[in-house]
């Protein structure tokens, strides 16, 4: 594995920053700084710019529009993009479906789905969780019954992020009820426009619409849209989660938010001066800065494990636990520093000029990020599941 020299890395980071500075529209840059999502159209437009630059899916092989870069270079790329305030790559297309197809798909499946996934001609969503299968995912019950060269799907998926945007879904379905629960699951690709698919929004408690329930009423899926053999879907899905493990630390996000916290604390004042200088706030911010630094180094350590051993194992659970907790703590401090400026609902920020709602630094939409971040403590293995994993696999309890 070739290691980038310091100069190479510096030049590369500079190149990325320049690209982001010239290619990300002001409107989106502001949204990112405020911790908000880009819209569907904005996300697709940005992805197509990246594709044109050759950076659409840096971790895919060149043959499919990727780069063949080293793990380290990909890490630097993703880190610098996030720090520079670029929108994130659509994870379901690029980081989840893509790697799965590359590893388990047939050539025909790759030809059919990879180009559209890269270019965002199809927006993919992930159908894993079900109303009665959350942290215990393997107990999922959505049935797929073979009917000639099709499966008939009945059941429901829940917590499906951006299903309202999606053209296609990759999902786990039960194809055998007679065996151990992990052994009877298959991995299917499903056209969201098929007859019998319906999407119901599930609003977050603070109002945002990200999540959905997706219902299947006798949906027909051609057998050639199954990835891998029948009843091997659990293995496929587990491998898919492995691709995502380093990213769960959210360290670049935490660093960006720490910058926002510092700016806001310096801009906002009480009668004795800036909040940044207030001793209790200064100590709190210092502690957060220290934790964010620890998270950054922990993520780099994880990268080194990946490079050296090809896996990070249970270290991912610590990264996930602490990454979420540290991001939440920074968000909480931001909201506290915002004070009354942080009270406005998102819709109020949409409708009023900033100076009506903010006296100090830019506190627009600060509440949203703080409440959004309750979610990652629950998704993809809740904090409690991560603790179970650590207790069992590391601590031998």
């Amino acid at each position: 594995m070739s290691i980038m020299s310091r100069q190479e890395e510096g030049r590369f980071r500079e190149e990325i920053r320049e690209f982001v500075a010239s290619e990300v529209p002001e409107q989106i840059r502001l949204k990112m700084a405020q911790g908000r999502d880009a819209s569907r159209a904005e996300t697709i437009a940005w992805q197509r710019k990246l594709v044109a630059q050759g950076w659409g899916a840096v971790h895919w092989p060149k043959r499919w529009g990727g780069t063949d870069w080293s793990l380290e270079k990909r890490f630097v790329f993703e880190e610098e993009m996030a720090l520079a305030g670029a929108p994130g790559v659509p994870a379901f297309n690029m980081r989840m479906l893509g790697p799965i197809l590359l590893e388990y798909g047939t050539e025909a499946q790759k030809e059919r789905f990879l180009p559209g996934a890269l270019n965002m001609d199809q927006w993919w969503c992930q159908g894993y969780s079900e109303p009665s299968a959350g942290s215990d995912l393997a107990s999922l019950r959505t049935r797929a019954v073979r009917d000639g060269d099709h499966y008939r799907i009945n059941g429901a998926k829940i917590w499906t992020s951006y299903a309202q945007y999606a053209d296609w879904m990759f999902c786990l379905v039960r194809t055998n009820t007679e065996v151990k629960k992990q052994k009877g699951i298959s991995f299917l690709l499903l056209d969201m426009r098929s007859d019998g698919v319906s999407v119901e929004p599930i609003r977050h408690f603070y109002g945002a619409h990200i999540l959905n329930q997706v219902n299947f009423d006798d949906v027909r899926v051609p057998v050639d849209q199954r990835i891998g053999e029948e009843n091997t879907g659990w293995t496929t899905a587990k491998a898919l989660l492995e691709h995502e493990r380093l990213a769960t630390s959210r360290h670049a996000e935490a660093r960006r938010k720490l910058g926002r916290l510092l700016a806001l604390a310096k801009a906002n004042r009480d009668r004795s001066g800036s909040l940044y200088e207030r001793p209790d706030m200064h100590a709190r911010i210092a502690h957060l800065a220290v934790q964010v630094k620890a998270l950054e180094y922990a993520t780099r350590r994880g990268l080194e494990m990946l490079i050296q051993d090809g896996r990070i194992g249970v270290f991912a659970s610590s990264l996930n636990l602490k990454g979420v907790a540290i991001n939440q703590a920074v968000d909480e401090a931001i909201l506290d520093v915002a004070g009354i400026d942080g009270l406005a609902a998102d819709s109020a920020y949409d409708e009023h000029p900033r100076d009506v709602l903010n006296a100090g630094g830019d506190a627009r939409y600060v509440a949203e990020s703080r409440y959004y971040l309750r979610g990652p403590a629950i998704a993809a293995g809740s904090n409690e599941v991560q603790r179970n994993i650590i207790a069992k696999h590391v601590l031998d309890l």
Partner: protein
Amino acid sequence: MGFIPTEEQQLIDDTVARLLDKQWDPRREMNTQSSQMAGGTLWKELNELGLLGLALPESAGGGGMGPAELSILCRRFGRHQVRAPFLASQVLAGTALAHAPAGPKRDALLAQLAGGAVTLTLATLESDAGYDHRLIEAQASRAGDSLSLSGCKRAVMDAGIAEHVLVSCRLDDAPALLVVDAASSGLRVESYAAFDGTSLATVYLDAVAVSDDAILARGDAALTALDAALAAGALAAASETLGACEGALERTLDYLRIREQFGTVIGRFQALQHRAADLHAELEMLRSLVAGACQSLAENPAHGDAYAALALAVPVGDHVCREAIQMHGGIGMTQELGIGRYLLRVNALSRLFGDAAHNGGLYLATLEV
């Protein structure tokens, strides 16, 4: 790169671990103070293996290794509950000397230290100055051919056995670092034990006559040497805290696996499992930050990451070591079991080098520039 130990680093760690297993029984050494340890066989063997001077410059006969290797040694000391004058002599005084301008006195002292022929300490802290080593009241003034040094230094580690004391003071209205012979007239060392077994002293300097060649550094050069020493001290304290936490957690996990109550081993209870998992995750963060700080200090000896590491080590150390007592139940309170010694040590380290707010503030200040 630098987060996974190299083979050479692993070898150092194994060597130290084997030596400590053989030569240092924490239970037997429960009442051994840091200054007393210096006369023992372990100290001699550490010296003979070149471990005491491993991070001192090669030019002075030291090992020429970096912060990462220093950290390995301190971490082992923490894990095995070693009390030694290492922090005072090799880390604080040694680093200050290594970063002071070359000169006959400095070179000679450094060579003696690297050879294990002398014990030194660094006296910086004063009353009413918190942990700010740049707030200096001790004063050296011209008195004929020599200097006259007066002041009072607090919480000086192992001053009772140090042959020479490095003292920060003001000279000609600028900071300076002097070296004072411990036998000098006018220098009085009042030694006492800290609650964790560290030997401390209040050092009174009353018109101590010091010759000009004892000026190790002055002005910015003095601050450079002091900054490097304090950063190395912070990294060493963070590393030792990490080691203490690892020792405390390991012993606690052993206990959770065998202690039976309510008809089962208590490690089966999810309430305890989750708390132990949280401690593990906290230590993973501390491990990562200490390793990152070692890399930063290798490039800049006064890098703020050292203070970040200690700022995290203080609360993590306190939490892990308190939980170690709690999860042991009643037996955890006993001196005989000794699990509480880890808490004493990590708390003493944070008293010696400053609490989380102090060290966090130092780190935050380095982000400003």
